[in-house]
């Protein structure tokens, strides 16, 4: 039983990292990134490529956040020319293109079969590492949120024209956010790779993007702790489906997997309709009067 719990927490922790990244991009800065799986994939494939070519795994681990930041730059460049909603579609296209390129080029990292047999790190060891990563990210993101940088990106979220009117360059801030978001998400991708021990295109599908979006929205957009709550909550529900009665053999194992994706979609829509801010609201930054 504890084994299942630790496993669940570890997976929740991996998703928490991904969700924190998306929360920075959308919750705080208003970027409609529908291609976040591109960031995860970049991180995961850093591990995969290194493993496929039998290089030292440390190269992959160090390269991943760098690759994620570069991926962030790539997605940031089109923001200069595109409306937010067209940009959202482009991020989708870029994510799909990246996976298709990986899929069709076996010489990079195994093509459609991917690379497998990556060293498995026991959940009991992975979880504390992830907990540490999450702690660092949350502290850093909270510092960002309360800082002048955090105020500027939130103005970018609320009203880009107001941002220009107070003399700030929208592009510069979006670039920074996408680089940081990309790097953090890539780290999540690394964790995912080591958790699954497989790096292959289906791991980083559009479904992953939707799952992380659901976690962020349900948990509470704009709130870093909300991202943790969202990841835990949805992961708890996923685990819960495993323990549902099977109604006398009427439901099979695959059905539970499908139930999960249904839950993701339903929870996302429900929260948007009933309580858009999510479970944990964005908290105000308050200041006491100076005397």
């Amino acid at each position, binding site marked *: 039983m504890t084994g299942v719990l630790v496993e669940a927490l570890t997976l929740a922790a991996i998703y928490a990292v991904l969700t924190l990244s998306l929360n920075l991009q959308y919750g705080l800065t208003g970027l409609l990134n529908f291609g976040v799986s591109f960031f995860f994939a970049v991180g995961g494939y850093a591990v995969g490529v290194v493993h496929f070519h039998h290089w030292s795994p440390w190269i992959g681990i160090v390269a991943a956040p760098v690759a994620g930041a570069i991926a962030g730059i790539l997605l940031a460049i089109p923001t200069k020319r595109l409306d937010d*909603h067209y940009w959202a579609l482009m991020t989708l296209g870029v994510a799909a293109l990246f996976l298709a390129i990986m899929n*069709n080029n076996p010489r990079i990292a195994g093509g459609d079969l991917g690379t497998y047999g990556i060293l498995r790190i026991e959940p009991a060891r992975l979880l504390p590492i992830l907990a540490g990563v999450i702690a660092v990210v949350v502290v850093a993101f909270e510092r960002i949120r309360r800082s002048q940088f955090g105020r500027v990106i939130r103005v970018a979220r609320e009203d880009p024209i107001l941002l220009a009117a107070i003399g700030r360059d929208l592009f510069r801030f979006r670039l920074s956010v996408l680089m940081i978001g990309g790097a953090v998400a890539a780290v999540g991708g690394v964790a995912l790779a080591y958790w699954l021990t497989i790096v292959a295109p289906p791991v980083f599908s559009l479904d992953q993007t939707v799952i992380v979006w659901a976690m962020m929205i349900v948990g509470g957009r704009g709130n870093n702790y909300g991202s943790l709550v969202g990841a835990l909550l949805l992961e708890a529900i996923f685990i819960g489906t495993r323990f549902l009665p099977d109604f006398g053999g009427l439901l099979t194992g695959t059905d539970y997997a499908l139930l999960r994706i249904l839950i993701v979609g339903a929870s996302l829509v429900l929260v948007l*309709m009933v309580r858009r801010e999510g479970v944990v609201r964005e908290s105000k930054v308050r200041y006491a009067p100076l005397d």
Partner: protein
Amino acid sequence: MLSRAIIAAVFACELALVALSFNLGYRVIGFANFAHVEFVTVGAFIALTAADYLPLPAAALTGAVVAGLLAVVLNVSIFQKLREASVGTKMIASAGVAVGLRGVVQFVWGVDPRRFAQPTRLFAIDGAQMSLIQSVVIVTAIVSVVVFSLLLKFTRIGRNVRAVADNLTLAEARGVPTGQVLNQVWFISGAMAGLAGVLVGLDTFVRPELGISLLVPMFAAAIVGGAGSPFGAILGAALVSTASTAVVSIDFGEIFGGNSFYLGSEYKSIVAFSVLIMILAIRPSGFFGEQRGRA
């Protein structure tokens, strides 16, 4: 060469129906509806099940109608309630709906691909082979587009749709029952997507990933033609289909010297994705769309 052209034409017809109906919806509802491709999937599966009890044409019609009704139900229960929300929120919600729909489809019909019990008549044209299915797809698509344009141009519903698409507030002021018209648009858009699904299902397989496999090609075709321009979408579909078929038909060995070298058919999707990215990078308004992009 001709057989390649036929394949391209067939895919173009299928994609055109999907993209056209998407653009019709986009024009009127104002956001990119990710669930649109799932109407395609639902249409295919409903028709598949109906084909056990009905002749194929009736089954196809059933698929289309159910898809259309589903679209209306989703509008009334979900999207209508999100009317005042931002475009981004609506897009996110539609992604959730899309995923949920796919989950339901998988739950009801399972994950394995299926095929229609179909006639496999082939006939020859100019030395190439064309199957009956392929000609059915092309003919059905053309007929649908013609019927659609007639509907748009000559019926009261069509006039109302055009009025609402041009200017919602003005149409409302002129007494057009906009709520009703919106639902009519959802129905037409969903039904056309459903019909496209039946055609794709006949042409290839009926599987839950049907919709999602068309997502990016649909966006590419829709945007190339100009988001919000239903007929531009036809051009877009032709372009995407031709480009992706052409790229895998070129013998690069011949061009660069050396042995025969063709890109695998997996590269078709790469082309579609690249087209989307390129058109967004170069001309987001497409050929017939309104000038948008960053103000």
